[in-house]
Structure formats: structure tokens, C-alpha cells
């Protein structure tokens, strides 16, 4: 990263994920921020490091039947089923607004086959404003694709390599926590050319309604998110940071700048704010403000001083 002269009252929050340079480490997590515009009344979108949009598939998907969500202790379960407008409508209807704002857009993509992932990446490769692609190999809520790729290192590597070949923008692979050893997956996608990894996606969970004796979700199982999963996410980010050299984006229960910076100490170069957006639509921008204040108060040269700076022993 080129050195710049930072004014006294400004702080250097810049981080990089491969060739993707961000003005600060705060992104929104896919599936919790719509296509960005939904939050325009609450968030000054260009202030974010990047907007990560709802997972996009080759063709539109209508999602799972309701009930799709249920609240759990300090968290929620969801089985949305990757409802989205499909890549063509995403490019024609959603991207113009975002690219006009000038905020980097990371497009989360999901396919049912290696070829489908490639085709989505090809469609997005030259679209103005698309700063990076996040490959979703970890959604627990669909029958085909998603986690099928996320639990098998060979399949994950194959998807990663195929997407890398299909586009020039940095490729981030979003990892599932629902595996025996997340570092195996991280190493596999690094070897296949991933520019970074983001983790964790939701943990598979279940809730039951005793009164009706039925599962709380129509899909029976769903993905757990929110503050409840933060300790698991921190542990996995820490482990992956020991296992790979590519940048890590930390995700899982982040609601504040303090949470975000814990992930950075564990080894994350950037973070994604997810479920917190539902409770506080301004959460992502609040995290930017909070990190800036901390860096200023602690007199750090840069927020990058926090990355992997966990003290041990």
C-alpha cells in the first residue's frame, strides 16, 4: 500500500484484501444488508469499506416457505433459502445505484455446480463497481450447492480455481464453520488461488416450538447468527490466521467496534457486520466511527497495527 500523509485529526483506517484496497475494514455481511439501498435512510453508504450484497445466483430464486426466521438466545436462526433477483436483474436493477455511489461492492455468488459459479463470475467480471467476488460455499439452507462445496476441500478448491479463471477482480471465499477442521478448507482455497477468506458463515442449528411440537422453521434446520456465535467465530478466525497467509475477513456476531477489533487482533484484516444490521441499521457505520475513535485515542499509526496483534503467553 502506498504511503500517504495522514492529517493529524484523520486516522489511517485503510486495509487491503489482495488488490482490493478499502478505506476502512468494515463491510456488511451478505444477506443482512439487502442490496444496500434498503439502508440509505440510515447509513452513509460511501463511508463503508465495502458493501457485500445478498447472495446472487445465475437465475432468480424465490427462497424457502415461511416461517424462515426464529429468534434464539442472543441470536437468530434463518432459513431464507437464498432468495435473490438473479445475476441479470442484479446487474441491471441493483448495481447502477451502488456504482453511482462509488462504494466498493463485493458480490456474494452461489451456484449449484462449478460451472454455474464460473458463469455468474463471468457475468459480473466487467460490471462497473464490482470490486470483488465473495464465493459462497457455505450456505446451509439450500439442497444443492452451498455447503456441499464448503465441506469438501477438493470441491472448494475447484470452485475457487474456476471463479478465479472467470474474472479479474479479487476472489474471497466464504467459509462454513460446519466442518471438522476449518483450516483444511482455508488452505485448500488458498492453494487454489483465493485472494482472501471470509468466515464464518452461520452455524447450523435448530429450534422447536413445544406448544405445536413442530420445528420453528419450515426448513427444520437453519443458520445461527448474531452475538451468540461470536466466540466460535473468533476461535476459527484465530485458527485460520495460523494456517494461511492470505487476508482474512472476520464475521460472526459483530455488533460494535470492540467486537470488530477483537477479530482484527485474532488475525482478521477486515470484518463484516451482519445480524446487527437488523437491530441497528446504522451498526456498520457505528463500527467505522468506533474503530476510528480507538485508533485516534490509542495513537496508532494505522488500524493495520491491530491485525494479528494478539498478545499470547
Amino acid at each position, binding site marked *: 500500500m502506498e504511503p500517504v500523509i495522514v492529517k493529524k485529526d484523520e486516522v489511517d483506517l485503510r486495509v487491503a484484501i489482495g488488490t482490493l484496497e478499502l478505506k476502512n475494514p468494515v463491510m456488511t455481511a451478505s444477506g443482512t444488508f*439487502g442490496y444496500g439501498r434498503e*439502508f440509505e435512510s*440510515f447509513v452513509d453508504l460511501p463511508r463503508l469499506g465495502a458493501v457485500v450484497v445478498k447472495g446472487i445466483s445465475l437465475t432468480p430464486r*424465490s*427462497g*424457502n416457505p415461511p416461517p*424462515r*426466521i426464529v429468534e434464539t438466545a442472543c441470536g437468530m436462526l*434463518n432459513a431464507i433459502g437464498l432468495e435473490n433477483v438473479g445475476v441479470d436483474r442484479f446487474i441491471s436493477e441493483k448495481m447502477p445505484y451502488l456504482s453511482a455511489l462509488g462504494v466498493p461492492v463485493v458480490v456474494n455468488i452461489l451456484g449449484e455446480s462449478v460451472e454455474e459459479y464460473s458463469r455468474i463470475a463471468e457475468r459480473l467480471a466487467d460490471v462497473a463497481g464490482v470490486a470483488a467476488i465473495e464465493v459462497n460455499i457455505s450456505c446451509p439452507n439450500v439442497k444443492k450447492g452451498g455447503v456441499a462445496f464448503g465441506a469438501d476441500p477438493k470441491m472448494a478448491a475447484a470452485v475457487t480455481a474456476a471463479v478465479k479463471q472467470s474474472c479479474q477482480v479479487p476472489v474471497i471465499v466464504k467459509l462454513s464453520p460446519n466442518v471438522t477442521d476449518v483450516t483444511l478448507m482455508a488452505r485448500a482455497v488458498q492453494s487454489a488461488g483465493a485472494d482472501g477468506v471470509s468466515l464464518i458463515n452461520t452455524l447450523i442449528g435448530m429450534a422447536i416450538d413445544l406448544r405445536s411440537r413442530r420445528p420453528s422453521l419450515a426448513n427444520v434446520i437453519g443458520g445461527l447468527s448474531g452475538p451468540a456465535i461470536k466466540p466460535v467465530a473468533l476461535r476459527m478466525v484465530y485458527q485460520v490466521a495460523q494456517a494461511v497467509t492470505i487476508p482474512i475477513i472476520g464475521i460472526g456476531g459483530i455488533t460494535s467496534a470492540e467486537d470488530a477489533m477483537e477479530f482484527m487482533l485474532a488475525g482478521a484484516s477486515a470484518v463484516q457486520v451482519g*445480524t446487527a444490521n437488523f437491530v441497528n441499521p446504522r451498526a456498520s457505520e457505528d463500527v467505522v466511527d468506533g474503530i476510528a475513535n480507538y485508533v485516534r485515542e490509542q495513537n496508532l499509526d494505522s488500524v493495520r497495527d491491530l491485525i494479528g496483534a494478539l498478545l499470547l503467553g
Partner: protein
Amino acid sequence: MSQFQKKVELVRTEVLARDVVRLTFDAPDIAAAALPGQFVMIQIVPGQDPLLRRPFSIHQTSSDGSLQILFKVVGRGTKLLAEVKAGEQLSLLGPLGKGFVLGDPDKACLVGGGMGIAPMLFLASRFCRQTQPVQAPTVILGARNRQELEPLLAGFQNLGLEVLAATDDGSLGHHGLVTDVLKGLSLAPGFTVYSCGPRPMMAAINHLCLQEKISCQVSVETVMACGMGACLGCAVPLKAGGYAHACSDGPVFESGDLLWSL
């Protein structure tokens, strides 16, 4: 579209009947922007458990900046909300969603059942503001019994409206369902029914309106996490296939667009 995320003061808590609570907030920005049928998301506690906001349709707004919600204590969230003390601050998000489309007041019939009465008062007050009481809308309200229904009538009567009441136990008004009362009115084509209440009630009203060729708008209730079209948790099945979202496409829908037989 003006939406606000505001810390507002709870001015008053009234227990209208057993487990039926009305809260009044001082929320001038949201109150001024709100339309009948829209809702607010309320953060019940500042911490993380319960984590999510709860959606409440707007019961009434006033030019002094106050905003009311009406709800029944049904679970942990509503119980905690009923226990918040006057003078405390809560975070409100709103106004959210698409409200009712208002037609001619004298060709409007409002049907509210149980806590579905909540948005009907806001709607009735807008109809009455539009015109002289001569052209007042027809109002049918139902609940389980007199204790639940009676305290909710005053708001409508203060607008000069006559309310046709129905109770499950016959303790006030018609002994039976609001749909019986609606059927008895034999509304002419050109009328619009505006309805909110339990799902079986709205399904029956939808059926009746289809038969009588009367247009019908319903306000639906679903679980939701965000209230602003991001989580996609509030899926409402459509007759044509696929789903709409209660928070951003609704909560008010043309009843004929929805899938009622599940």
C-alpha cells in the same frame, strides 16, 4: 420516503384489559411521517436478549407528536415491553412498510379483529379527516368478549363513528364473528373492505369479498427481523407463486393477491 431511527420517550402505559396494553410514545418525526397501515420496529431492551426488534402497527398518531401502539402480551418480548416504565427511552424505527390505499370514505368498510383493531383506528381517523362525518366509513370490530372490546371502542366513537361490534361470547354486540356482520351488510360493488385480524378471519373476509366482487385490503402479521427488506424473513406466499415480503411489499396487500389456503 422518510424513515427514522430514534430514541423516544415512553409517555404512558395503559392496561386496557387483561394482557392488552396501549403505549404512548413522544415520537414527533415518526408520527408526522406515518400513514395508516404502516408499522414501527421497537427495540425492547438495550442489550442482546431478546436480540431483535418487534414490529407493531401504528394505532394512532397525534399532531402533538405522540404515537400509540396496541398489543397483547403473548411472549417474552411483549411482556418486557409492557413492563417498561413511563419516562424511559426506547429505540423506534419507522415508519415502515406500505400502508392502506385510501378510497372514498362512504365506500369504506373497516373490519378489525382482536389486536388487528390496532391499525384500524389510525385508518378511521384519516378517513374522518378527509371528509365530513356524513360520509363516515363503516366500522366492524370484534374480540373475544366485552372486557377486551369495550375499551377499544372509545377511540372510534370519539371520531363520531358508529361501531358494529361482535364478540365470541355475545357479551357485546353480535354473538359471533365479524364476518357474519360483514355478510349482513350486503355491501354494494364499489366498496372496499380494509381488514386486519387473525388469519382465519382475514381468509374468510377474502373469500366473502371475492364472492361479492368487493375489493379488499388486508394487513398481515409475520415474524420479521429487520422490518426494512433486508432479512427477507417475512415471506408471505402469493397466489401467483413465490413470495412477497410483509415489511416492504406490505404489510398491507390486496387480499386476492395472497395465498390463503396453506
